[in-house]
């Protein structure tokens, strides 16, 4: 067995590699979107693909999100596997009708005769100092739409594995890319990227005994940091990275909460009507007798995404998570 050097790579590089490998493995995979060709995408995720596979397979489209997704639907109807890029979270809204009325429903409408194997890549979330309409967390809209899979990686290896799995899926996948993690580095072997995770499995990123932090995407590193900081206060926190919001991995999440008896859900999208409410309800329904305290939520505030100079007050940080963990001392207060 040869040992291959494990080099640090960024999440953006892993995503590029996933697209390249998928295109090389399957000629029906087509990448399309605004600026994905010559420029290589504004985040350079599609860098080099047009050169390597030609403009017919990595296509700069007109600037029109409904048109990009709508034509991708037609391409999938003819047997291609389109991978669509929506440049920023809030730019995907014009395509929402196509996503909800057609992408999510085509298999169902046609009794399984017309599945749509397409992937919609959406860079999402804040923390990069973007001005308005560049930092939305829209996952609740997608989660609330039956027929879609919704996944979001938090590590370099998962970015590769989940994107390969999304493209290979016979169902439409909304692939949310935490844009503030694009440049995060992990030790990952780009020469042998074999880790392809099945969609729908959460993972325990850090085991602990005293409470579970349930989180995903851009909030995973924040929770890891909070877990380290909590050790000083005697808390041994477990961190569960959901990776897939739909389907939801009740099994891994509930197994963790039953072990620890306490849980905090952490995400940066708004709390009201947000993913945390659904997750807290599921955990409560399934683990009520194991819970020592109510399931708490640490979320972004319920306001339009703030201007960049104020976003640090909005985004759930280590302190806010630690405050919530402190409030899990339920018996002591009652």
């Amino acid at each position, binding site marked *: 067995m040869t040992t291959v050097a494990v080099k640090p790579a960024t999440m953006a590089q892993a995503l590029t590699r996933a697209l390249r490998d998928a295109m090389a493995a399957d000629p029906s995979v087509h990448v399309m979107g605004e600026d994905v060709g010559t420029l290589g995408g504004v985040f350079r995720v599609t860098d080099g693909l047009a050169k390597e596979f030609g403009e017919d397979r990595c296509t700069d489209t*007109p600037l029109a999100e409904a048109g990009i997704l*709508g034509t991708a639907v037609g391409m999938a109807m003819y047997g291609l596997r389109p991978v669509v890029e929506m440049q920023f979270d809030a730019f995907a809204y014009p395509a929402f009708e*196509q996503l909800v009325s057609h992408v999510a429903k085509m298999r169902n409408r*046609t009794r399984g005769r017309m599945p749509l194997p397409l992937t919609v890549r959406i860079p999402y979330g804040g923390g990069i100092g973007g001005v308005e309409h560049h930092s939305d967390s829209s996952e609740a809209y997608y989660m609330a739409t039956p027929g879609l899979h919704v996944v979001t990686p938090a590590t370099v290896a998962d970015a590769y594995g989940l994107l390969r799995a999304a493209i290979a899926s*016979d169902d439409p996948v909304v692939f949310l890319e935490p844009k503030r993690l694009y440049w995060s580095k992990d030790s990952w072997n780009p020469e042998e990227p074999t880790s392809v995770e099945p969609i729908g499995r959460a993972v325990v990123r850090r085991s602990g005994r005293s409470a579970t932090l349930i989180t995903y995407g851009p909030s995973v590193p924040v929770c890891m940091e909070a877990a380290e900081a909590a050790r000083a206060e005697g808390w041994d926190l477990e961190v569960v990275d959901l990776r897939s919001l739909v389907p939801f991995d009740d099994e891994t999440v509930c197994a963790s909460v039953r072990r620890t008896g306490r849980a905090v859900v952490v995400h940066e999208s708004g709390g009201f009507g947000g993913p945390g409410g659904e997750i807290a309800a599921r955990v409560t329904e399934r683990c009520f007798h194991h819970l020592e305290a109510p399931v708490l939520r640490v979320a972004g505030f319920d306001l339009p995404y703030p201007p960049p100079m104020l976003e640090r007050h909005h985004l759930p940080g280590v302190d806010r998570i630690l405050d919530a963990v402190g409030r899990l001392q339920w018996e002591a207060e009652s």
Partner: protein
Amino acid sequence: MTVMEQRGAYRPTPPPAWQPRTDPAPLLPDAEPYRVLGTEAAAGADPELLRRLYAELVKGRRYNAQATALTKQGRLAVYPSSTGQEACEVAAALVLEERDWLFPSYRDTLAVVARGVDPVEALTLLRGDWHTGYDPQQHRVAPLSTPLATQLPHAVGLAHAARLKGDDVVALAMVGDGGTSEGDFHEALNFAAVWQAPVVFFVQNNGFAISVPLAKQTAAPSLAHKAVGYGMPGRLVDGNDAAAVHEVLADAVRRARAGGGPTLVEAITYRVEAHTNADDATRYRGDAEVETWKRHDPIALLEQELTARGLLDEAAADSVRQDAETMAAALRAHMNRDPELDPMDLFAHVYAEPTPQLLEQREQLRAELAAEAEPEGAQ
């Protein structure tokens, strides 16, 4: 050097010369809708084609009448009739080769049936036992689209994909006058023109979007004029003249197949019936207008032409009407039987593999059905 001296030294240059990308003149539609029946052009029409169009028109009208009757009997949830527009429906279906694709909107059941889909399966959506009854891949007919104009970009993507694969497939996408105001109409036409996709956009301008008349829908000289802005030809045709609609669409399909890119065809027609059985058309239009259009009836127009040229006698017309009656009787018989429904189908086609959450819900429904099936009083 002072600022003024600097300004004095500055020699502004004229902007670079601007050239339009395309000469718009050949793209513009004619001022008058193109007509064949009752004009000199009719002499050149293929008698076989005219007879086929006639048979399909008569069958189509009978189908509309039968489906409307079925709504009154509660057998269909709703039926948007295309009576008065049969020439458009039939020509759209007949102009396509087997390998081509049709993208209908909710009023285009007739086109779907004329394309060869079983008349009962074409009504599945409107009956309510499922959404799409027919197999889109088998017939190369997309599901009937209820959201307006959203199926147009699908047609563009499919035609583009076919061309990338080297197949000479054409997609014909149908939309109403109201649908041309939607954003997806614009995006679809723009993508098609930029990609030179083999697509024909077929607008049936029947005068009203439910109750809103064309004058409140657009300020364009005609809907066909919109084509020029995208860089594709616009054609205007009398939508009640089956021979003219067929000829214009056939030209557009030929052009698309040969690599000439998309065309926008606007057919001027009229919805004789209300929007659906739930609509009261007398609130927004007068009887006189409807009567005027009834005198420009697509079946009567073609019948006059066929009779004048000796291509249709009473016996042949009788035979066509008899075929239509047979079709209607079969449709009636099928639709009067209650469909067999399996509630477990609800979970069958959401994902390729059901999620754990759906599997739980499936078991819940199964238990509910089992409880319902138990005889009353059983423990």
